[in-house]
Structure formats: C-alpha cells, structure tokens
C-alpha cells in the first residue's frame, strides 16, 4: 500500500513539473531562510545558558534617582563586593569583574589579549572549567593568572603553560605573573569572557580606590544561596545602601531629588545571568534587545507561512484535477483516513524534498550569511536537541498545514459528483483569497518596515554630528605604549606636512573604532550649592580644531598658553548648568579636589559625541593626565584622503617600526555604531525580498491555474472583440484587488510597529505616507507583472484553439 502511494506521488510530481518546481523551490527557499533565521535567533537566545548554576547567578545593578531622571548602571565601587559578602547571608559567592589590559608578554613576544581581573569566586560560580594546572585555587595568589586554552596555545605553542612566567601591561608598566591554570575556551555565546584572568587586586587604581565609595568601575556578579530569593535580597538592600552610600544619598537629598517608585533614592537590584545579553544596563551584556531574536523567529515563521500557503493553494487546486482518482478509490473501497494519509503523505514527500533542498541552500549560504551579518553560525548547531526538536516540530506543522488541510478537503468531497464531472475545481475561492491576502499583508508589512528602518538608518548616518567626520583620522594607540609620548612624537613628525591640518588626541574615540571600543566616564561635582554632572573627556591640545568643533566662546586648548593643563572646554549643555555660554567662561570647577579647581576656557557648540540613540549630554573636556590619551586624531586636508592616510601610517611606522596601528576615518567609526541596526536591517531587507518573491511564486502558480481554467472564456471574449489589454485587465483585476486590500491592511500595522521602534531613537524621522505608497507600489507592480506573464499569454492565444480545447 505504502509503495503504491509513493509511486503515485512520484508520478504526480513528475507530471506537473512546473507546479511541483514552484512548490518545492518556494518551500526550500523558505526552509533555508527559516533555518538561517532560527540559527541566528537560537544563538542569541543561547547566550549564558551553559552555566550549571545559571538559575542562581545574577548580575548586580543599581538604580539612582537623579535630577535629570532615573539612572541604572552595573558599575560599582570597589569596596562594595566585600561589604556585600559580609552583610548578605543570601550571597553565597560574589565576584568583581573588569577589563584591565589588552597586552600580555612572554619573554619578548607581546600578544593582544583580553585581560580581566576578578575575585577567586568567579571560576567557582561560572562554568568555565579548568583543564590543567591548579584546579582548586587557581587564583590563590595575587600573581596567579588563568588563561584559556586558545591563549595558551598562542603564547606557548606546544609547551606546557603551567607555571610559566608572563607579564601583563598594567598602569604603564609590565607586571609579572605566573600561569597557574588553563581553562577551557570560553564558548562564544558567553557574555562574560576573557583570554586571561587575574586577581581583582591587580586592577589599576585598586590601592587608591579600595575604600572609595564615590567612584564606580567594576561589575559585580553574585551567586545566591540556595534558599535565597531575588526579591528578598532586593528588599534587604535598602539598609545596605543607606549604610554605605551616605555621601551620595546626602547630595541627592540636598538636590531635592524625588524618590523612585520603590520609595528609594538608590536601590540595588539583580538581573539573572541569562538575561544580561539583552539588558543594556549590564556593561558586559546588553548586546541586543530581546525583541530582535524573537523578531527573527517571527519573520522566519512569516516566510515559512507564506510558502505554506502557496503549497496549500497549489495542492488544493491540483488535487481537484485528481478528484477522479480519489473518487474511484473511494468506490474501490478506500476509507477517508486512507485517502487523507495518501494525500498528506504526498505533501510530506514534497516537504521532505524541500527540506533537504533547503538544508543544502542554507549550507551553501551560511558562509556568505555569516560574513554579511558578522555572525558565527554553523549548521552543527542544529544538532542541539532543543533546536532539532523545534525544527522537526516546525516541519510536521508545515506538512500538516500545507498538506493536511488540502488532503482533508479533497477526501471529503462527494464521490458521485466527481464521477459525474459536476464538481469544478476551485469554485469557491474564499479560502484561497483569504490566504493570498494574508501572504501579501505579511509581505507588504515587511516591505514597509524595511523601508522605514532603512530611512531611519540613512537619516542617522547622514545627520550632521557637529564635528568633522570625513576628514579626521582616528588612531587607536596600543595599550602598552607611553601614549602621551606617542602623541607628542606624532605631532612633531606630522605637523607642517602637506595635507595635515591639525593633530590632537583623546582618551575616548568617536563612534566605534576598529578596536570596537566605545566607553564614557561621568563626573559629578558641586557648583554653587547644586550638583553638576557631566561626561568627562580627556582630550589634548587643538582638539576643537582637529575635530572641527564650533567655538561659541573662549578658545581651544593651545600649547601657546602654559596654563591650559588646568583649563576646561565645555559644551552648551554643560554651560547651561553653569549659567549660560558667556557666564560659564572663567568659571572655576572643583572637579578633582577643591584646592586646585579647573577653569573653563572655552565653550563649544553641542555635538553628538555619543550615538544618536542618545540626546547630547553635558560634556567637559580637559587635559588631566591621569586619564591617558588613547587615540590620536589627525585632521587632514580635503582632496587626497587616502594619500593622507598613507602618510599617517608611514610616519607611524618610522617612529614605531615594531608596532601596528589600525587607523580609520571617523565616518567609518560612526557607521560602525549602527552596525547592529545595519546587520538587522540587512536581515530584514533580505527577508522582505524573500517574502515578496515567495508570495509572487504562489501568485504565479495560481494564475497559471486560473488561466487554464479560463482559457475558454478568454477565447470567447476575444471572438466577441475584446482587446489584449482589456483581457489582461480583466484577468489581473481580481488579483490586483487582493493585493491592494493587503497593502491597506498592512500599512496601519506597519505604521504602528515602526512608530514604536522609532521611539528608541532620540533623533528620528517622521513616518511619511509616501513609504506606504511606495511599498504598495512595489507589491502591486511585482504582483501585476507576475500575473501579466500568464494573462498576456492567454490573451495572445488563438481564440479558436482555446475554444476547441475543452
């Protein structure tokens, strides 16, 4: 029996090659897209799920009410963690965690490495298993380091890493350490990562800040005791905050800040380790918003659904032409379940074919996909049981939806009607039309959203930021170098060269450099009895000139004045806090210590020193040496930009032959800030295109069927004198109406969804009605073209021929 079914199925597939091809190809493409999207989403959702203790592990964060609003952050004073362990029995283990260096040295070879410092608890709390060396107390001594297997291989090659001496560049010098253990490589879906980890006490500034409750730097991870709850911890944290943050609380009260929803000015909270990847409060985590992976799954589902609908429509249509076979089988004694099994079995066969093809397509596309969207995916992920189960479930659902329903619909039709020939295929098109409208609603929705997202990104990219982007080269300086000296030497060798306009430096890059870094620090001080907060940016001489900022009052930092090391250049927002642009000039601020106040020497126009997601905040630029310069900025003359870049690289090579730098123009850096958005909008654009293509494949197939059915009518109309255009219009009309309806349904949904999305951005476009017109136009155009191929063919056919063939 089964073989009989397979045989029939196979012969049927071969008989209608075009429709089968459309079916299988559409479904295969959908499967491939779906697999890629699911893999992407799965990877994001799998972040930090591998820790054995994941249910107990939390990251600490603090919420502070400020005059300008609530602020949450995950950076804490150094003494907080020991106090936490002492005061909370709920805390079974806790570890501070911070990046401290980028370079490690063995003998005379220097390696780039992600060096972190942490408390010994870290390796007990998290599942970073050790594979060699001291297994129990690898961070027992202050001079111990644990390195990953990969790093060990890079540094020591085949040699055994254990007990080898290494040096780490810390606070301007090389400090010696001993490798005590090698850890298994950290999975790339771990938010917490390191190549090298040493004891927290090695953190730069540790000694001076170990009792300082005013500064915030490291993150804190906590493992709760088995009986403890997050709610219990948070409830008891009020007392803790009051005990230790006395000075800050006093200032907040003095500034008249209103308590938050929980009645507190400051409160400690916990977030589960499995959520930090999606939580932007977490300094390490917050890579993406949790909606993105789910959005990907949704879009994958959409695409699959669209392909399923094609399948359904085609199977129903094709099966009606097979109704004679079905009727005959009933007369020969087949019961309904046997018929459903047979027809559904055929659908399963096609789906299987499509799935295999889809897997092959996915496999072929994966390298390109990874490169395009900077992912690290592999089909091997499919082996994980959860995902495998999901894919299988999805597959069964697809076959049920696409094959099961048509099978049931056909199996229940009246036998006699079939044999008498009074049954005509697809007389009632209600269901088919609903399905087609749904398809095109989804496609139009994706097109609209994509267009709006693209407009927004374009708007962000093109928006004037208040500084010069295309003529300024940013050079990230190697960690282990005397950066002040490097800046000085570059300044000396470059200044006066043709094509070089100005040279300066800063502790913080603009946008996101090739090193991927982007950070900021904030200072707070008292001014005339109220507290003033500002971003704090160490810059160097000629910064205003080098970045092309606009001076409103005063002057730039300049080497011509001997006193500038105690000067400050501020932006308008900061000036507003000090009484206005003119009033701010000459103001003395007790930033570091009140004995040596710093003086405002210049005010610049506001510029976007942070991503456009954020509004411009107060900014104070200074020359204070304790924040070393990390980047050199070189403004070059317009014209030969690449030539100037080459010159910069050449000069560097002459000064530091052994050291590599990776300079970039600032516009590359600002583009890089929107890389995540670009990555996702890339995925969305592809998905939207796919959706419309697959929808049109379905439309094409349906139009083939409709046209075959209407051949006679078209013939008669032609004999009666209808023109080709008239006939094309006649036949396309029904489809066009459906597509128009779809666009009308999709537009308001897209408007609502994208309006929500845009709320995330401080600078955003207004959604324009033309987007919907354009999206509708695209959908309509593609649909009409698809249908026209068929209707023109039908219209051009010799009418006698089409009337005779009955």
């Amino acid at each position, binding site marked *: 029996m089964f073989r009989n079914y397979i*045989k*029939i199925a196979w012969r049927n597939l071969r008989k209608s090659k075009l429709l089968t091809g459309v079916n299988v190809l559409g479904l295969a493409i959908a499967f491939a897209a779906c697999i890629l999207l699911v893999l992407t989403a799965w990877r994001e959702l799998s972040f930090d799920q591998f820790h054995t203790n994941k249910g107990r592990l939390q990251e600490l964060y603090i919420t502070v009410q400020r005059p300008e609003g609530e602020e949450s952050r995950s950076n804490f004073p150094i003494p907080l963690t020991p106090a936490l362990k002492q005061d909370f029995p709920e805390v079974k283990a806790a570890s501070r965690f911070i990046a401290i260096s980028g370079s490690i040295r063995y003998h005379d070879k220097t390696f780039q490495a992600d060096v972190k410092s942490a408390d010994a608890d870290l390796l007990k709390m998290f599942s970073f298993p050790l594979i060699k060396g001291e297994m129990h107390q690898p961070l027992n001594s202050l001079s111990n380091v644990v390195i990953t297997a990969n790093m060990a291989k890079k540094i020591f090659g085949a040699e055994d890493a254990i007990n080898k001496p290494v040096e780490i560049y810390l606070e301007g010098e090389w400090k010696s350490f001993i490798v005590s253990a090698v850890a298994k490589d950290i999975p790339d879906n771990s938010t917490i990562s390191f190549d090298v980890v040493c004891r927290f006490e090695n953190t730069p500034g540790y000694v001076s800040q170990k009792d300082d409750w005013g500064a915030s730097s490291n993150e804190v991870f906590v493992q709760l005791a088995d009986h403890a709850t997050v709610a219990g911890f948070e409830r008891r944290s009020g007392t803790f905050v009051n005990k230790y943050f006395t000075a800050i609380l006093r200032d907040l009260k003095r500034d008249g800040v209103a308590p938050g929803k929980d009645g507190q000015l400051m409160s400690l909270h916990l977030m589960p380790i499995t959520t930090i990847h999606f939580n932007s409060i977490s300094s390490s985590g917050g890579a993406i918003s949790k909606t993105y992976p789910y959005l990907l799954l949704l879009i994958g589902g959409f695409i699959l659904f669209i392909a399923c609908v094609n399948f359904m429509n085609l199977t129903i249509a094709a099966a009606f032409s097979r109704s004679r*076979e079905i009727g*005959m089988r*009933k*007369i*020969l*004694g087949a019961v309904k379940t046997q018929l459903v099994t047979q027809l559904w079995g055929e659908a399963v066969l096609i789906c299987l074919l499509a799935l295999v093809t889809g897997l092959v397509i996915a496999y072929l596309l994966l390298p390109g996909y990874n490169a395009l969207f900077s992912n690290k995916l592999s089909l091997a992920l499919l082996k994980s049981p959860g995902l495998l189960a999901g894919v299988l479930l999805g597959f069964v659902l697809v076959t049920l939806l696409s094959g099961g329903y048509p099978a049931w619909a056909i199996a229940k039709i009246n036998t*006699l009607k079939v*044999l008498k020939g009074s049954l005509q295929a697809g007389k009632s098109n209600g269901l088919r039309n609903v399905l087609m409208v749904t398809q095109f609603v989804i496609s139009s929705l994706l097109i609209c959203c994509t267009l709006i997202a693209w407009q927004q990104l374009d708007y962000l990219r093109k928006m004037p930021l208040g500084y010069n982007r295309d003529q300024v080269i940013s050079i990230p300086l190697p960690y282990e170098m005397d950066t002040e000296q490097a800046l000085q030497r570059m300044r000396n060798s470059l200044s006066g060269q043709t094509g070089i306009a100005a040279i300066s430096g800063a502790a913080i890059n603009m946008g996101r450099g090739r090193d991927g870094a982007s950070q900021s620090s904030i200072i707070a001080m008292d001014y005339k009895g109220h507290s003033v907060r500002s971003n704090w940016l160490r810059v160097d001489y000629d910064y205003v000139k080098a970045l092309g900022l606009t001076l409103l009052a005063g002057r730039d930092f300049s080497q011509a004045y001997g006193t500038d090391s105690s000067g400050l250049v501020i932006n308008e927002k900061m000036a507003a806090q000090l009484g206005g642009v003119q009033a701010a000039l000459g103001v003395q601020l007790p930033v570091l210590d009140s004995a040596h106040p710093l003086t405002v020497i210049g005010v610049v126009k506001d510029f976007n020193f942070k991503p456009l997601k954020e509004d411009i905040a107060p900014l104070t630029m200074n020359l204070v040496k304790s924040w070393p310069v990390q980047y050199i900025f070189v403004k070059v003359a317009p014209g030969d930009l690449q030539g100037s870049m080459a010159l910069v690289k050449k000069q560097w090579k002459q000064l530091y032959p052994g050291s590599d730098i990776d300079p970039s123009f600032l516009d590359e850096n600002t583009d890089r800030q929107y890389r995540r958005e670009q990555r996702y909008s890339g995925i969305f654009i592809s998905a939207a295109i796919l959706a419309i293509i697959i929808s049109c494949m379905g439309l094409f197939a349906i139009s083939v069927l409709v046209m075959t059915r209407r051949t006679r009518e078209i013939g008669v109309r032609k004999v009666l004198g209808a023109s080709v255009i008239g006939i094309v219009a006649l036949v396309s009309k029904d489809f066009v109406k459906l597509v128009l309806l779809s666009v009308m349904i999709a537009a308001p949904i897209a408007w609502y969804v994208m309006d929500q999305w845009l709320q995330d951005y401080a600078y955003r476009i207004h959604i324009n009605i033309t987007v919907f017109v354009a999206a509708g136009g695209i959908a309509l155009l593609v649909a009409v073209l698809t249908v026209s191929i068929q209707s023109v063919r039908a219209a051009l056919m010799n009418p006698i021929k089409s009337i005779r063939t009955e």
Partner: protein
Amino acid sequence: MIQLKHISKHYPVGFGKNEVLKDVDLTIFPGEFVSIMGPSGSGKSTLLHILGLLEEPSTGEYLFEGEPVQRMSEKKRTQLHRGSIGFVFQAYHLIDELTVYENIETPLLYKNMPASERKSRVADVLDRFNMVAKKDLFPNQLSGGQQQLVGIARAIVAEPRVILADEPTGNLHSDQARVIMQMFKHLNETDKITIIQVTHSEQNAAFGHRVIEIRDGKIQ
C-alpha cells in the same frame, strides 16, 4: 440478492423538486444477468448508483442480500465496496498514474490482502483477460476496448458477487462491445457473478437473461 421496495429519488431543483425515480419495485436474484434499458434521462444511471450504494434513495427500502441498506454503517458500506460490489463505467475511470497491473491490484490493496496472494490473483486475472503482455503499460497507452477490459478486470479481481456496469460499451465499437459482453456472460455463467448493466443496445441486452425497461423513472 437485491430487493427494492417503493424506491423513489428526487433532486431539489429551484423551489420544487425533480422526480427521477418514482416508486420503483425491483428484485434481482443471485446469478442473474440483467440489462436496464430506457431513453436518455430516464433515470438508469441514478438507479444503478442507488444499487451500488453511491447514492441514497429519497424514500423506500433497499435490501442488499437481505440486509436493509439504510441502516448500514459507513464501515459496512465500505466493506461491501471492497468485497461484494464491482463497478464498470462507461468512461473506464482507470487511474491514469498507475499501470495496468497496479490498477487491477488497487482493490486488493484496500482489502489488506497479503502480497503473495495479491500477486497470484492479479496474475490470474491478467492471464484470463489475455493482458499479461500489457501489464506494465499505462491506461493512455491502451485502446478504449483494452481499457474497458482492464476496468472489468479491476471490478472482478476482488471476486465480488455483483457487478454494476453503466453503459460499459458506450464508448466502444460493436466488435469491442461483443468481446466485453462475452466476458460478462462468461463471468456470469462460470463464476456465478450477478451482473446488472445499463445499455442502449438491443444486441448487448440480448446477452442477459432479462431486460428491465425504465421510462420517466418508472419500471414498465
């Protein structure tokens, strides 16, 4: 074997109804070879469909081998289709995607017959119909007469007790028709299969034992 009592059939047409069969009484005994004749539209096909359990009578009682059909479950009816009733159609209604062999085999598949027995049965029938050479051909590779032979072979392979044939030779030449009729006669005489056929031709009717004339839905 078959007993119809006061059977009538009507279809709804517009607001009224179209009476196709009016108060039909009919008894057919086991082993009979009956021909139903009458003008076009008189209700022959409808009667045959009722006899074959493809259609329900509007009123009246139908006993198949003494059992009232109205009270049969869907399962029992399927059982009868699988084993007791064979159909032959004017338009053959072979399954185009299956070969001759597979077409004949299909009813046995639905009877869940073991493969070995199935094979020997199909081989037997093919042999009897002289179609062994054609067993791997598809229906569209056969002539009309050959297709109808396959149709009959398919109808008898499950060894039914009654064959219902609706104008089995309607699409055939008279030579081919004779072959089919001789086959029916043979099946009737040697295998004792009850045969009920609808026909327009006196010659074909002459192969049977009895002719039932039907006119305007009434048996004459």
